[in-house]
């Protein structure tokens, strides 16, 4: 089949260093849904840790390396497992706007890159990945994914179509978990107070599993839970959508009566 979408995988440094399972699950899901995947070796990191801390000049080389790496493969799309980093990459175009070489390349990159769940729902047009997970879950939605990337619905739609899942709403879902990149280390008192509240709300749901779209937030929340004895399972959405899959259940939106939910929900915050 040569009309298979060619997808370049943006792995993100956390997946590379700490969470291989998330990367594996993402690739397996995408391949199952008919994509050809490629993984450029030279990619490193989107540059958020330094750029968001104020080191703009020091981040430029990181940006340029990432642009070169991700554009080194002639793919139709670039897909990553984290809305936050994907948005950072989309921001390159503005930051490098005056660069005659990298400005246009950054623009091209911005147009191609998608967050994982957004890609499945909005680009591939799939509503059910065929997964099954017999559990009560609650979802931490992640701030950059919802507010900067502006995608607050795709993950929820996909999760709600996983067979056997019961999703309980998370109280004060809109509040940040306290990660905030280097914020968590620079302002540990504030960050800890925030994650403490978040964990309390999560535990109050009595869910078996916490699902998230962002490995960084999950690392923060799970780090606090693990330290304080709140031992519920934590999964990235890619792992959920890759769980006990029956490919015959994969369903496209167009084959259902369900409307496409706008990324921004009702748009009042």
């Amino acid at each position, binding site marked *: 089949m040569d009309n298979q979408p060619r997808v370049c995988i943006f792995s993100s440094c956390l997946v590379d260093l700490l969470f291989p399972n998330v990367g594996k699950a993402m690739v397996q899901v995408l391949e199952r849904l008919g994509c050809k995947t490629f993984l450029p070796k*030279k990619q490193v990191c989107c540059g958020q840790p330094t750029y968001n801390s104020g080191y703009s000049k020091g981040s430029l080389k990181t940006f340029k390396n990432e642009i070169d790496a991700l554009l080194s493969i002639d793919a139709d799309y670039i897909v990553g497992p984290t809305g936050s980093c994907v948005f950072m990459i989309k921001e390159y175009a503005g930051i490098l706007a005056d660069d005659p070489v990298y400005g246009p390349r950054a623009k091209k990159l911005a147009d191609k890159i998608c967050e994982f769940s957004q890609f499945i729902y909005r680009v591939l047009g799939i509503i059910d990945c065929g997964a099954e997970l017999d559990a009560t879950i609650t979802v931490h939605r992640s701030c950059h994914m919802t507010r900067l990337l502006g995608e607050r619905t795709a993950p929820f739609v996909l999760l709600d179509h996983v067979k056997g899942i019961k999703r309980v709403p998370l109280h004060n879902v809109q509040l940040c978990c306290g990660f905030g990149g280097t914020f*968590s280390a620079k302002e*540990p008192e504030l960050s800890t107070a925030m994650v403490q509240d978040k964990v309390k709300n999560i535990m109050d749901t009595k869910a078996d599993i916490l699902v998230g779209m962002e490995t960084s937030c999950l690392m923060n929340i799970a780090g606090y839970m693990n330290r304080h004895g709140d031992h519920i399972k934590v999964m990235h959405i890619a792992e959920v959508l890759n769980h006990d899959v029956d490919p015959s259940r994969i369903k496209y939106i167009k084959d259902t009566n369900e409307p496409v939910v706008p990324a921004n929900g009702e748009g009042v915050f």
Partner: protein
Amino acid sequence: MGISTSDKPFITRVKEDEADHFMRAAVAKAQDAQFIKRTQARRELGNWNEWRDLAEQIRQHVLKYLPDYLEEFADNVEKQDGHVFFAKDEDEAHNFIKELAIAKKAKNIVKSKSMVTTEIDLDKTLLSIPGANLLESDLAEFILQEDNWDEPTHIVFPTLHKNRDQIQREFQKLGYDGDDDPQHEARFVRGYLRKYFMKADFGITGCNFAIADNGMINLDTNEGNADITMAIPKTQVVVMGMERIVPSMKEAEVLDNMLARSAVGQKLTTYCTFTGRKKGGEVDGPDDFWVVIVDDGRSKALGTEFEPILQCIRCGACMNVCPVYRQVGGKGYGSIYPGPLGEVLSPILGGYEKFKDLPYACSLCAACTETCPVKIPLQHLIREHRIVEMDGKHMDHSMTNLILKMVGKGTQSPFLFGSAMKMAHPASNMFSQTEQPGAVEGMYDEGKIDYVPKIVPKLIHGWIDTRDVPRPVKAKENFRHWFKDHKPEEMAPVVKKEGGHAND
């Protein structure tokens, strides 16, 4: 008190706030209640984001032509026989008003809530006039004044940190003998202040919006104190930040609606008034009408990436959604402008030296940007401040700075990162770590790092003191390794070089 409310270092203030359980519970409750009211009010209006576009357009337009609008406004105030003084800084502003109060032999000065008068330290200046009395008439400001000029902690709800019992005790000193029911407390203040109002001879208000094309002042309040302040005293001073101006009542009306919905979840504040100097035949209102237009550092933002902060209409929604404000409350920021607005505005008005920590008291979650009725990209501007501090002023000389510079180096080079991926697992042996998978399933397959020596910098301790960290995976088990092995290698469709390639 000026814009700065505290000389204590940021971290001390944060620790004090952490211990203040009443305050934290009050803030959380307030945020949650406002969340519901605000969202309902905005939904009910419909097309909220298009209203925001309009509000943003109005504010940006005005800033672009600010000198012209101020000129038009000043002309129109002068036409009503009013007076306009342009004050470039805090000292000019409060000295002017002091001179005026002395010249008018003011005895009983009454004020209605205004952030800018706090900013220019007006109360202290006026209290230094022998024989002059001064009362804040806004209920919250009155409470703060009676508690020995306590600091405000929110721009809309300045006494968010106080509870009804504290207020009851405070009022008892003034002769209150009722219970701690807020309704009774408020009625007491009504009576107490009314007596003062009736003899007030010098009134001071802020200004929500100045109307350029008719020289009127637009005020939004719920208590009615600003209106009484504009009714009874014969001399009236309006203090306004120079950016608080709109072309006409039509634009003011748009912003009034959005302000009320954003600030308190109302459709309009109870009193929304357009007013100015008393006109012929009218019985009350100011005979003598003075407007003081204050720069006080605002012009430092004009023409820069920070200009959008001057769009602010002081609704306080950004602090009502801020997860950091939720933990710190207003006092922690050490500025009369707390929360996201304050993180952007305080370093501009008060300088980076004093407020360098504020832009870092933020997880960049962008809830503020999303809620701001005039679409100020707050979290973006907060990050811009960081860039000024680090790249422009090189203000951080700590270990954190060094580490982040190393991270910068590490993330720009595929070679270094490749080595890091190989090294991370063995290197983590330097720290004590647990080999058994941690208890939170799915996160600790390699075990966790749960102790680091004291000597490692705060950047790492900050994390590890309260949270576990998974141990990095072995190189053979990492994602890239798996990817290479998971399917027969297929030639990647390589792009032919088109310029760039920083690392070639």
